[in-house]
């Protein structure tokens, strides 16, 4: 295990290492993807945990990739700011690890994905070059947005070393409701009804377990505006119950739970307008699974005790342009069919990691 203290140290370590390298943050999501090469050198990124630039009045921050997202949020909260990014395990996971794993949460409905907040990055290529992409200011079109390529890439294209983000003011109010006891399709319809004017929600989640189906809806913003929306929603849906930010956190942090007997985690996506059409098939193929569905985003995660028929799931989603990825669990077809443009992706991997050092074999681009 190596633990570089600076980006320069990280780069020289990468240059000097001949075998495979596994970049590692808190290690919470190392289970995602194919297993690491057994002879890998693990690079612990957690010493790169410095805020290198934060001027609150600019609403931007630059931090080392090894910083824990929750710690960053604590620093921002002092100035009533935050990153609207409800990633799982954010109290423990590093920002670099979360980016590399491509993890985000239901706030994507209202706030967009982490890629929309990421302004720039320093990353280290497989041959040990330190590359800057983007910058630190909120608007910047100088050069290609190479930093976006590293989101969800499991560190195979470069090691994320430092990141700059645009920030948002902390919302004055944050209120949620849950509605329990309906079909997934009905929950979906309620979600869409609660998206129409006057509603402007920040997040939706449909939680579908073998025991219950529950719709979560969240509003953030000016207190009076949030109160109005919650009141109208509750008048229309009398069975709705209030929920807190804490209950969202609890829900999102441990959806994959060995105590629930979960051994498998799948990511499924398709264009949001097609999601409703795939629910029946998904429920039929995986009746014992728990689903977390972001209806308006077009993203679902499936947690189950054993591997469902992944081929059947793919057959259900593919006609709608969707995909199924086995994030946790052994599956030789983890990533599914080769993505479009895989030849370009392979070339890029070869250009930036010529000796195939960075997490070889972990990702769809090997």
């Amino acid at each position, binding site marked *: 295990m190596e633990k570089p203290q600076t980006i320069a140290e990280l780069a020289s370590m990468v240059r000097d290492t001949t075998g495979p390298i596994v970049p590692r943050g808190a290690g919470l999501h190392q289970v995602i993807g194919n297993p690491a090469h057994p002879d890998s050198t693990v690079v612990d990124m957690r010493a790169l945990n410095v805020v290198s630039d934060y001027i609150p009045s600019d609403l931007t921050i630059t931090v080392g990739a090894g910083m824990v997202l929750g710690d960053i949020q604590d620093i921002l909260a002092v100035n009533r700011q935050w990153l609207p990014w409800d990633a799982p395990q954010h109290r423990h996971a590093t920002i670099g690890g979360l980016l590399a794993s491509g993890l985000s949460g239901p706030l994507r409905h209202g706030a967009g994905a982490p890629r929309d907040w990421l302004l720039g990055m320093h990353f280290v290529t497989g041959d040990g070059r330190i590359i800057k992409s983007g910058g630190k200011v909120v608007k910047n*079109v100088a050069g290609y*947005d190479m930093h976006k390529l590293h989101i969800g890439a499991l560190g195979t294209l470069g090691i994320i070393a430092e990141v700059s983000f645009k920030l948002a003011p902390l919302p004055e109010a944050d209120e949620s409701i849950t509605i329990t006891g309906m079909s997934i399709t009905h929950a979906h319809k309620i979600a869409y009804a609660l998206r129409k004017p006057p509603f402007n929600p920040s997040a939706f989640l449909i939680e579908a377990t073998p025991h219950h189906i529950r719709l979560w809806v969240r509003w953030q913003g000016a207190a*009076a505006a949030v109160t109005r929306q919650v009141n109208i929603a509750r008048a229309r849906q009398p069975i709705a119950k209030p929920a807190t930010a804490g209950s969202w956190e609890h829900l999102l942090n441990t959806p994959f739970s060995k105590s629930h007997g979960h051994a498998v985690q799948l990511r499924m996506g398709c264009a949001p307008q097609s999601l409703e059409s795939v629910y029946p098939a998904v429920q039929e193929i995986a009746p014992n699974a728990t689903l977390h569905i972001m209806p308006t985003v077009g993203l679902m995660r499936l947690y189950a005790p054993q591997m469902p028929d992944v081929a059947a799931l793919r057959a259900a989603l593919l006609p709608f342009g969707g995909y199924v990825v086995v994030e946790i669990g052994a599956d030789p077809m983890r990533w599914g069919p080769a993505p479009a443009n895989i030849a370009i992706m392979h070339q890029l991997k070869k250009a930036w990691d010529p000796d195939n050092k960075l997490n070889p074999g972990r990702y769809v681009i090997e």
Partner: protein
Amino acid sequence: MPNQLAPEYAQLVHDLAAAIGTRYVLWRPEELMMYEYDGSALDMARPDIVVVPATTAEVAACVRIAATAGMPIVARGGGTGLSGGSVPAAGGVVISTGRMSKVLHVDDVSRTARVQPGLINTDLSEFTAPWHLHFAPDPSSQKASTIGGNAAENSGGPHCLKYGITTSHVLAVTLVLADGSITTIDNTAPDAPGYDLLGVIVGSEGTLGIVTELTVRLMPNPEGVKTFLAIFDDLDSASDTVSAIIAQGVIPAALEMLEGQGIALVEQSVHAGYPLDAQAVLLIEIDGMHEEIAAQTAQIEHICAHFEARELRVAQDEEQRKKLWSGRKGALAACARLAPHYHIQDGVVPRSKLTEILRLTREVAKRQRVHIVNIFHAGDGNLHPLLLFDIREEGIIERAVAASEEILMACVNAGGTISGEHGIGIEKRDYMKWLFSEDDLWAMRQMRACFDSRGVMNPCKLIPTGASCGDIKSARAGAKALAAGAWI
């Protein structure tokens, strides 16, 4: 021989005409003239041939034919760009998207629209108005610029302060690659396996391929909108007001500044109601739920009073709002009253550095004896110092370039960047080294080569290149006559 086709191009023109029809292949000098410039202050470059295909397949055919003949290939939308992105710097074939301007589909469930690249920006929001949806990126050129061009340049606009620049609003593209093959890069199913190639396509200035179809995100129209004009007798107070608004956590939909001579120039031209003697005006627009607007109104009133705004006006109706905006969006053309030529920069600074950089701008203008008007996206820290002069004055171009470079370098030194929304193109290509190391540029070149190994797509743009582009005149000495059709 104005109507004689150069013999070496006869076969090429013949092949292109066979692919898309004779009338859509332009090669006579008088036909090519309007394709030799864009909105930037560039030396012009004439294409050898212009084609106007109607479909993705026709674009692919043109690319294949041109690439086989070893010709550079440059895509062109509205030609309103301000960095030379659509100027055929090395000659070659210009592919105009002028006949690909349709809205193909609107989906109000996913809130997306599938469009052709030649669609005019405002036409999209007008088309989607019945669904109460709109396309958020709103460059000031939006009545003439195209969605394809917006994607190529990763365009901004006043309302990008709150809603983000074009890259956040493009979900999928159909792309013709340098070998004429057609591919799609599709993020409509989020987080699909594979690298986020769309992230580098948007903003790639036509150097990776030609986009022939796009799926874009549509935003719901806000419940309410309120537009203010804040009038200041002092530039520092206006820029301090901008910094304070952002620092207090108010993110307006738009926060624009006009300062100095620009105010009077715009007023005399557009009659938007700006006071002629003001030192700076801020155009502040907030949108959202009614309660949010009420809360933010109180904050803005408080901040403007604190920094001693002379007056804070509110647009009382849509007509007044449009009037206030017409001053902003028509600003560049209005400045023709002061001097016939211009050079414009697009630097960005951290928002807390605005006061400092605006002071420097005034100082530089005085020292270099050149008019500089700032009309810009203050809330983003995105400056548009507009240098106005008459090239007949001896030594003025050198002084204007020196002034421009000093301001741009100050933006970089303040932690900012050389372009916030106009793109690098030819004009700022040589400044890339102020921001990026040789290794950074190496990574960009390597990435570009993965899409276009022979470098036929819009060569000599964006990345500083070697000798092959040495014959392209740099924009730095360029100056362009102001015309009605230019926007910042």
